[in-house]
């Protein structure tokens, strides 16, 4: 091969070898023992370098093998479809952001650093917490890092996790804490309201708990109305309080900072990111103004500083916590994070503004309640829980949900997440229009009727 668009020096090999003073490229690999040299082509791709045109055809083919739904998916479980303003993709596609890397050299990366500082600051306002890092991978890993952090601080080994928190996050938590021997103790929830069972929580909150986790709204979309109580228990037991939040819900409800929680986590996916089949997502991680918490916080943080002329500037701060200085004593191993997604979040929040976030949260509230109402107007269909909810909600059906799923598939609809034989968790946002919701409801009604009449 004598030319390839991504390999500019193929025609200069001899010239470069001459400068080096060797006869061929293989000589540069003389230190690799012969028995482990490959000496054959790798069996990858399509047998030859594809032209851009052919790559695009392959991509189109993959797109075609997917099925385009007739309405946005009615499934959430922490990752929900939203409208993404065009300005976001436009900005994060700018080369200077997109093809840059962690701003190790702050003087040449002031724009990137400022953008990340603004992300931290915007989320801080949303949460009413003082310190936010410049991202974790996702909500799941943010939860895991929060628990590992609690363990670093108080050395205790049990974390209380409610059964009504997101099971996908719990799976991640379980994986991440296994090395440190931390145990998860699950806390029951009230089967009527869907909220956490405070009695069970109190019962399980012994002296070995390192942290108590609570999700607001919880996995069922239900608002937890006793957060103060939970935080009190944590304080009483000298455990850290960790609250997971849906950031968009904060347009309506009280932010974690108002409850004096130690650590707030969440996912920035709902702040301007596409679904991406589950990744990249965007882990939010915040702590309150407390040195112990800040010093033990994982991840990168940008702060304000001054240059040698006294001008305000930005730089990475608290780097002594990080692996490239502290190695095995670091607060976390995270280096590559989700910085570009953090910038996307910053743009989204800037576009929304004070009023926009409230309007959007209201719109989601209205639409999800409309959908819930339409579904529960169907005979024998009901809400699984009595407490109020946001965006996501659990519906109970008179027939097996698999039957409903099959029917929805005929119409190229994606229904909610199956939770049990007869319950499913639905997600409805501002991009589900009345027509789509009505179609969902009528299709489900039809599926149920079919069972009854057959």
């Amino acid at each position, binding site marked *: 091969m004598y030319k390839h668009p991504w390999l500019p020096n193929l025609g200069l090999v001899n010239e470069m070898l001459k400068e080096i003073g060797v006869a061929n490229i293989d000589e540069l690999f003389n230190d690799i023992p012969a028995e*482990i040299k490959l000496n054959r082509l790798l069996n990858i791709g399509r047998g030859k370098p594809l032209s851009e045109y052919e790559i695009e055809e392959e991509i189109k083919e993959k797109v075609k093998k997917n099925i385009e739904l007739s309405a946005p998916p009615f499934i959430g479980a922490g990752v929900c479809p939203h409208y993404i303003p065009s300005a976001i993709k436009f900005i994060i596609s700018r080369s200077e952001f997109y093809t840059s890397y962690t701003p190790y050299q702050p003087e040449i990366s002031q724009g990137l650093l400022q953008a990340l500082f603004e992300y931290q600051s915007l989320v801080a306002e949303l949460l009413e917490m003082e310190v936010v890092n410049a991202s974790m991978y996702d909500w799941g890993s943010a939860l895991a890092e929060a628990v590992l952090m609690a363990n670093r601080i108080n050395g205790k080994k049990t974390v209380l996790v409610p059964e009504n928190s997101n099971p996908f996050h719990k799976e991640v938590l379980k994986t991440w804490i296994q090395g440190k021997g931390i145990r998860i103790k699950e806390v029951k929830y009230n089967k009527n309201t869907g909220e956490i069972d405070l009695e069970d929580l109190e019962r399980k909150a012994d002296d070995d708990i390192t942290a108590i986790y609570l999700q607001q709204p919880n996995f069922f979309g239900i608002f937890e109305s006793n957060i103060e109580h939970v935080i009190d228990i944590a304080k009483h037991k000298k455990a850290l309080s960790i609250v997971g939040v849906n950031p968009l819900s904060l347009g309506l409800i009280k932010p974690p900072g108002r409850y004096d929680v130690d650590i707030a986590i969440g996912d920035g996916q709902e702040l301007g990111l596409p679904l991406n089949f589950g990744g990249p997502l965007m882990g939010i991680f915040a702590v309150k103004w407390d040195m112990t918490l800040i010093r033990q916080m994982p991840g990168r943080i940008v702060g304000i500083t001054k240059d040698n002329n006294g001008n305000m500037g930005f730089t990475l701060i608290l780097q002594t916590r990080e692996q490239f200085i502290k190695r095995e004593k670091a607060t976390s191993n995270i280096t590559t994070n989700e910085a570009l997604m953090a910038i996307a979040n910053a743009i989204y929040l800037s576009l929304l503004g004070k009023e926009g976030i409230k309007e959007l949260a209201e719109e989601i509230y209205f639409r999800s309640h409309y959908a819930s109402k339409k579904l529960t107007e169907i005979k024998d269909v009901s809400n699984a829980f009595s407490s109020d909810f946001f965006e996501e909600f659990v519906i109970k059906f008179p027939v097996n949900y698999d039957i409903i799923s099959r029917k929805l598939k005929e119409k190229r609809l994606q229904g909610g997440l199956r939770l049990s034989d007869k319950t499913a968790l639905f997600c409805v946002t501002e991009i589900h229009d009345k027509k789509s919701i009505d179609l969902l409801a009528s299709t489900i009604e039809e599926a149920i009727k079919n069972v009854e009449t057959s």
Partner: protein
Amino acid sequence: WEEPLIFELNKSNSTRQGFLINKDEEIRNYITEINIPKNLLREEVPDLPNLSELEVVRHFVRLSQMSFGVDTGMMPLGSCTMKYNPKIEEKAPEVVEHHHPLEDEDYVQGILEMMYELQVWLSEITGMDECSLQVPAGSAGEFAGVLMIKKFHEEHNRNYKDLMLVADTAHGTNPASAAMAGYKVIYVKSNKEGLVDINILKEIVNDKTAGFMLTNPNTLGLFEENILEISKIMHSVNAVLYYDGANLNGILGVARPGDMGFDIVHLNLHKTFAVPHGGGGPGAGAICAKGELTEYLPYPLVEKVNGKYKLSKIPQKSIGKIASFYGNVGNLARSFAYLLGLGPQGIQLIGKMSTLATNYLIAKLKDVKELELIAENRPRKHEVVFSAKPLADNYGVTANDIAKALLDNGFYAPTIYFPPIIEEALMIEPTETEPKETLDKFAEVLRKIVEMAKNNPDQILKGPNNTSIGRLDQAYANHPSSITPTYRVLKLRKQGKITYLK
């Protein structure tokens, strides 16, 4: 120039909004009330800025102009593999963008097929049996790998194995990952040639050794030529040999970790497989294993069952899930496109051409005595580490000063002070995508900087001068009385509501 904070743009404090919310009036007629308990309602609206679309776009466009990426110039950041990211890759996320991770598998056969092909290709590339794409970045891959090692030993009742070996040239993430998994870390010293000292290794290794985390070529760009012996030593005590894929670029297509005796490999797709680095992320990763260890991979993997792709493969003894869903699939798509563009013939040239670039750069600088090389007769692979100690000792110009001087000359800086075994280290990775002309220019600029350091060190110490801001005060940034991680802290401090951080 200088761009105000986004909070300070709307000086008139007027009502603005960057995009309108689509409101459905029919639905609002149907659902008229919000029934959230009063005590839960937010009392004060969050202090977000109110801005028009123009203000937001202009603000961030200006910020972008105060940044530097591969598209603007060479970024010789060692061990970061800042190669060019072909623009065709940006079409690839279309495959995944609008799909929810929990959609019915029949709706996402295209995505699953792509993931399946990538699993197979990455196994072939690394010489491993199986790859999981769960890990969203490199260090998450390492962590997964270490957890696999831990569980592997537990399943074999070798809980006494609590030591993890890490080369002293290793990336800082290696010991951090090992520690997160609960291991005690033992550093393996390098010999004078910059390679793992086999004699020391033999002395250290014992029954408590759980594994050895190694990158090959190592962070000096040197190939661990005794890798087969290292492998034998580790396997003799049932320890696992772990491959840190951060440095794979230099041998891509030339040799495979699997053939060297490694049991587990993690890959950084954002380095070796051209996913743009996005200002720090998102990246994408893979974690691969051989033989029995494949049973410990994080789940789920994609498998093909009766011609249909399913996310149903859960390795028997899997350590679990690393990410909430299946890793950074949007970026996997980019690597998929990249590999299609390379093909078998292209990929075998990556290791060769990146190694050629490194050694060419060394050759261009070999007469600059102030840039010292360990094991100078050994060829480098993906990168090279110079020591600027002579300059620091004789002229007071440090690696950091040289880095700033490079910024003033249109280049990003190398990785500095790493690996720690090299004093005043300048770690340079040119990659295969930089044209020879750029390498020549870089060598010329570095040579000029060295000359200036000798003749006029003050000018360098004052730098950088061409950047949007001068050299920044790290002490002020981190001092408990002035540390400012958010605008909220700035405001509260001004209002006297918070003080010294304690």
